[in-house]
């Protein structure tokens, strides 16, 4: 059974009113003293950043340098005659008996 919109609205109004009734509940006044006692026990606040916070700051400070480095290395590898590990392995397997050390390192 689905109530039509007007019934929804009526129900919402009733529930809202019931919900707001909770504001009138009385609460004791001892808890504030307990808060201040705990605050005094905690003492003055630490304003110097903790190690993880300092590390986080450092990471963010180094982030642009890291990005530039990655970009630079990518460009370098792209323009140079890069030989992948797989190709070196193939070379060794196919002609190992003919390959001298000097040839292998490209001298």
């Amino acid at each position, binding site marked *: *059974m*689905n*109530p039509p919109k007007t*019934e*929804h*609205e*009526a*129900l*919402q*109004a*009733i*529930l*809202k*009113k*019931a*919900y*707001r*009734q*909770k*504001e009138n*509940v009385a*609460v*004791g006044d*001892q*808890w*504030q003293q*307990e*808060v*201040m006692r*705990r*605050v*005094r026990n*905690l*003492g*003055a*606040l*630490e*304003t110097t950043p903790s190690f993880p916070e300092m590390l986080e700051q450092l990471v963010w400070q180094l982030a642009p340098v890291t990005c530039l480095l990655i970009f630079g290395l990518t460009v370098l590898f792209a323009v140079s005659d890069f030989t992948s590990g797989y190709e070196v392995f193939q070379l060794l397997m196919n002609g190992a008996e003919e390959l001298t050390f000097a040839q292998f390192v490209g001298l």
Partner: protein
Amino acid sequence: MDNDSPTPGDTEIVERVVAGDVHAFEHLLRKYQNHVLILLKKHLPYDQIEETAQDVFIRAYRALPTFRGESSFKQWLSTIAVRACYDFWRKHYQSRELPMSSLTEKHRVWLEEAISAQSSQSFHEQSLQKEAREILDWALDRLSAADRMVLELVYLEGYSLRETADLLGWSITNVKVRSFRSRKKLYKLITQAIPG
């Protein structure tokens, strides 16, 4: 939610506390204790209010160095209070061992009358708010912690989606979707409880 601009008095007090004047925190406590209590009374069971109020102010004290004054202190404190309520319900649902309360025949009859009443105004005046509250608690108890918080903030308190998102630290889309689903769940629960 209040959108008042940062109060200079509060900012000065916060600076004093952060600089090491622990006792200055009492000014903030006295100034905003009622605001926090009203907020907690609406979201939590009666026996949890004092303990959570303490927790809210201790959390606020610890987080004071992060207060930048971008919003008012009151708004910042409200965020801490609402998130403390959400944390309470999450823990409560995870560790719930007691069986959930059920509706009595009296509640069901009351609910039927409430929904079918032609004039809700006249019904408000005649009806017993105790029953309404019990039915609401019964229904809210059957929702998840997240659905419960969104439903209370948006549907019952009238916060906007953006305000709710800020208070809970969620995205607006998440609040929008949850608000729609939780409202649907609430009506389903209530209409299923009506006899016939």
